[in-house]
């Protein structure tokens, strides 16, 4: 056991059992999987991506490249979870990944021996011959071998949510700087959101032995957090990562609501927040960086800051004998803390002049040149200034290579960070994200005092308030002499996750991949789950050395959202399966379901396609019966999906007259007219009936699928083009249920107005708008009632219709009947037809699109009716109309709609054909290249039934 007898902020009174690779361990509340495994003496936690090298933890935070594990099992299994982030709960199951058969014995470790052949870009070179082998042999093998972790391949049972938050000040990170910023803003009464990715607030104050305001930093954090929690205007968001910075002060945030619980118990697993902040403060701290030396990737080798975190926060001393390797004062600090925890320590410092007051072996101007220990560190080889070397026995090695401010969010809108020599690191560019100020370590201000001070000052400045009083804290500047990698034989890792070594960067340079963006893609440096948080700067430094440039000139690659990985489920939120898009249901939806309706989707709407009866087993049987019923008796169908737009005001008639090609100005009160409207570019937008309900009130019924576009168009014309017209436009589609009742017996169901007339009729005490219009060619009405009466109206009408021998019909029958009559849908009005093509003359009056419609080139194929004349009796929607041989130049049009007409006993079709109106009586060939069907067709007018419309007026 490596747990220290005391210390840390874990709850030692309680034990939590959990498993790793099937073996049981115990943790305390407050432990991560990483700290608990270290406490149990487990160093080996994963395998590297390419060479399958045994790995332990490198860090104690979200930047962890090595210790990736699978959490949970079955459908809940989540791969690539960082052991340094996952909290332990009772019963937690975790597995190592990227190994087979076991973590201790991984067959693919053999790849490590093959490393001379697997350098950067190896797959572009090694497997190039013979040519065909890449595609058929090598790529499939590499694809199988590649990848991190396994998906469960089952639907994710967890529930996710998306939500919005608004605040005056968003504080990102709850270390010393973030806490002071939140305190300043919170005390001033501002709406504050303080978000931190960790489950414990305080940042480095929880991970070091520090004093703040004369007491332990743990105590100061507790008090401060308690005060913040007591302020109603402050929202504390633990376990919440700010994932991205976007335009207009909008930030993405992932809150892990239930990842630390055995069971979400009805709450979402995670919530993806969009936080809109007037001001934001980035207090995200910094990441310590490793030093590259041969075999620096063994379990037991970790960052110095992580070692101190495990000691002070988790009460864990991961090993007994340590070497600390540093290029700055953090080395002495780490050695001191290790000694205090009871460890044996050797301090190796690259600097000549550092003289720390420390009671352990101190080796200045020395370097670590090699390590031993396959599955856990055993010994460290140190080289002195005089070239002599010595092996030192150690199970732990702490690397302190300096700190990189966490600049990532400041780069999300395209800005690059700025190099700062005194800290040997990049700091955020001022003004990189409007409204966002970086403070504390995130801005290269590393002492605790600087963090507290800049956090308070930035919040005070942003909000125009007084900064909170700064408690006393250490303010000693860390002295660093940049040192990036040790010149020695052997592979020295820069990027632990992607197995990128110094040698790979040297190779990239040799092959002229010298720009950092090229180097990144050639070596895969900085990719995958950690996005190179511990790797990038070291690699830049190596490249800078090779090109003889400064790091500042070499530059960085671009950081993009998300800051840490975000599960797809969280981005999807509740928009999964049936909830992917909203479903629009008509008022009579439940009524139709009670009558065995089959359903069609029309945009977001669900409409009954047919109503099966008896032993009908094909859709055609039901459809043919329904058509016959309407043509011979009476049928009822709900048409509530039709657009219903009211146009009101003294200038409503003038307005519609300008909108429609068809004159509307003199339409009498109580009259209905069918009209076409054009888009500005002269093509037909939609057709619609227009009813004048009163002198200053019209209602129009645009096509279901076009009504949103029509509404926007009307509003645009009213608001922008003709603001002088006194007219109001209101979409009332969902306020009215509308039911069509048609057939020779319809007049026995309801006594209503004459053809193309409107009348208000009282039905069972409800005022109904009755329109005598028809889309089936039969006499009858469309009856509109307030939506809440829709189902009752269906019930009432069906009762009357059934007594006469009629019944319900669906969309399929309606479509057959409208094709028989040559009525249009958007199969014909496909955005490419002009009103000439549809056979409408141009009136003298002005209307939208008139000028553009007058262009000579606008005329195209014309609307015709088609029936078969040869032995093949089939017509196919979408099939081409071809004159002569089947060649592109001979295509003269296409079929827009084709149906079997039970009324006529054969198929009929509508089509668009070049010069079609002049060719009535001629024949043309239909070819459907997809199904291989071709048929000879007779061209005729686009109406097959009751051409004079006598049935409509009956």
């Amino acid at each position: 056991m490596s747990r220290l007898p005391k210390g840390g902020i874990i709850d030692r009174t309680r034990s939590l059992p959990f498993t790793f690779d099937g073996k049981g361990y115990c943790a305390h509340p407050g432990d991560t999987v990483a700290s608990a495994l270290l406490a149990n003496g487990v160093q080996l936690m994963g395998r590297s991506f390419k060479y399958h090298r045994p790995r332990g933890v490198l860090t104690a935070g979200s930047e962890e490249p090595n210790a990736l594990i699978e959490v949970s099992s079955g459908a809940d299994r989540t791969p690539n979870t960082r052991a340094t982030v996952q909290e332990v709960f009772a019963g937690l199951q975790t597995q190592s990944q990227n190994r087979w058969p076991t973590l201790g014995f991984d067959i693919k470790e053999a790849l490590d021996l093959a490393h001379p052949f697997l350098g950067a870009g190896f797959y572009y070179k090694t497997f190039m011959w013979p040519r065909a082998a890449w595609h058929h042999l090598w790529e499939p093998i590499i694809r199988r071998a590649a990848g991190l972790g396994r998906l469960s391949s089952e639907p994710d049972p967890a529930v996710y949510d998306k939500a919005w938050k608004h605040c005056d000040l968003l504080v990102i990170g709850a270390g010393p700087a973030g806490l002071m910023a939140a305190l300043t803003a919170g005390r001033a009464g501002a709406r504050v959101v303080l978000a931190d990715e960790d489950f414990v607030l305080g940042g480095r104050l929880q991970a070091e032995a520090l004093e703040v305001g004369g007491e332990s930093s743990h105590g100061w954090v507790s008090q401060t957090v308690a005060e913040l929690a007591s302020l109603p205007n402050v929202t504390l968001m633990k376990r919440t990562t700010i994932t991205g910075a976007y335009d207009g002060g909008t930030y993405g945030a992932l809150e892990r609501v239930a990842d630390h619980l055995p069971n979400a118990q009805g709450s979402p697993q995670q919530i993806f927040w969009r936080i809109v902040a007037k001001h934001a403060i980035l207090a995200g701290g910094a990441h310590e960086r490793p030093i590259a030396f041969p075999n620096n990737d063994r379990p037991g080798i970790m960052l110095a800051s992580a070692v101190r975190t495990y000691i002070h926060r988790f009460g864990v001393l991961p090993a007994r004998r340590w070497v600390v390797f540093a290029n700055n004062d953090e080395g002495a600090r780490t050695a001191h803390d290790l000694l205090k925890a009871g460890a044996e320590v050797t301090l190796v410092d690259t600097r000549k002049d550092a003289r720390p007051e420390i009671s352990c072996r101190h080796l200045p101007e020395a370097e670590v040149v090699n390590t031993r220990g396959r599955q856990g560190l055993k010994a460290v080889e140190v080289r002195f200034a005089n070239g002599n070397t010595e092996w030192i026995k150690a199970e732990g090695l702490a690397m302190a290579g300096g700190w990189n401010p966490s600049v990532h969010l400041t780069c999300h809108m395209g800005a690059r960070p700025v190099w700062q020599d005194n800290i040997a690191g990049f700091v955020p560019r001022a003004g990189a994200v409007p409204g966002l100020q970086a403070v504390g370590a995130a801005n290269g201000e590393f002492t605790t005092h600087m963090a507290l001070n800049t956090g308070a000052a930035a919040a005070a400045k942003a909000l125009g308030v007084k900064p909170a009083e700064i408690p006393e804290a250490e303010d000693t500047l860390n002295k660093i002499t940049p040192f990036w990698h040790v010149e020695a034989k052997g592979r020295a890792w820069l990027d632990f996750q992607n197995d990128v070594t110094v040698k790979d960067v040297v190779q990239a340079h040799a092959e002229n991949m010298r720009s950092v963006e090229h180097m990144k893609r050639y070596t895969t440096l900085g990719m995958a789950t950690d996005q190179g948080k511990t790797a990038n700067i070291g690699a830049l430094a190596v490249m800078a050395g090779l090109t003889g440039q400064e790091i500042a000139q070499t530059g960085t690659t671009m950081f993009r959202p998300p800051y840490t990985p975000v599960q797809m489920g969280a981005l999807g939120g509740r928009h999964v399966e049936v909830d992917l898009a909203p479903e629009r249901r008509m008022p009579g939806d439940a009524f139709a379901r009670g009558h065995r309706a089959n359903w069609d989707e029309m945009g977001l709407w669900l409409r009954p396609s047919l109503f099966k009866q008896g032993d009908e087993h094909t859709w055609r049987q039901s459809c043919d019966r329904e058509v016959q019923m309407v043509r011979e008796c009476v049928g009822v169908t709900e048409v509530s999906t039709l657009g219903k737009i009211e146009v009101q005001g003294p200038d409503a008639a003038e307005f519609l007259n300008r909108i429609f090609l068809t004159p509307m100005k003199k339409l009498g009160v109580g009259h209905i007219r069918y009209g076409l409207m054009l888009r500005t570019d002269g093509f037909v937008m939609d057709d619609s009936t227009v009813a004048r309900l009163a002198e200053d009130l019209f209602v129009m019924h645009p096509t279901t699928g076009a009504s949103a576009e029509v509404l926007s168009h009307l509003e645009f014309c009213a608001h922008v083009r003709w603001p002088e017209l006194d007219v109001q436009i209101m979409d009332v589609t969902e306020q009215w249920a509308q039911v069509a009742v048609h057939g020779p017996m319809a007049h026995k169901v309801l006594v209503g107005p004459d053809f193309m007339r409107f009348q208000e009729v009282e039905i069972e005490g409800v005022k109904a708008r009755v329109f005598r219009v028809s889309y089936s060619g039969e006499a009858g009405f469309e009856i509109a009632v307030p939506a809440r009466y829709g189902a009752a109206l269906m019930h009432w009408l069906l009762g009357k219709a059934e007594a006469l021998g009629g019944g319900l019909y669906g969309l399929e029958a309606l479509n057959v009947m409208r094709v028989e009559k040559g009525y249009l849908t958007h199969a014909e009005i496909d955005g490419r037809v002009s009103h000439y093509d549809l056979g409408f003359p141009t009136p003298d009056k002005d209307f939208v699109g008139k000028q553009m419609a007058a262009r000579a080139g606008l005329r195209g194929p014309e609307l015709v009716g088609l029936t078969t004349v040869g032995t093949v009796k089939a017509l196919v929607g979408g099939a081409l109309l071809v004159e002569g041989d089947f060649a592109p130049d001979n295509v003269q049009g296409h079929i827009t709609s084709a149906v079997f007409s039970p009324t006529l006993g054969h198929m009929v079709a509508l089509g668009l054909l070049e010069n079609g109106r002049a060719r009535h009586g001629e024949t043309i060939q239909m070819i459907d290249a997809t199904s291989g069907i071709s048929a000879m067709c007779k061209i005729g007018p686009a109406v097959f039934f009751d051409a004079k419309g006598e049935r409509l007026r009956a």
Partner: protein
Amino acid sequence: MRLTCPHCGPRDSREFKYFGDAKTARGDDFASTYLRDNPAGEHAEIWQHISGCRAWLEVVRNVTTHKVISVKEAGQ
């Protein structure tokens, strides 16, 4: 991105629908219908507050920085 609707105040861009170069709102002729500017900089655009008050808006925006310079009702 956020736009400040003259009626509804600052709202997320998801509430709005983009309709392109504001020139298209100015007439019926060929140039207004088809010829659009595509500057790398400030651009006057037409948007509709489709999930809000449904007002048609003219937005002047720098398309390289996404900075919104002005929002007013279109056609005024």
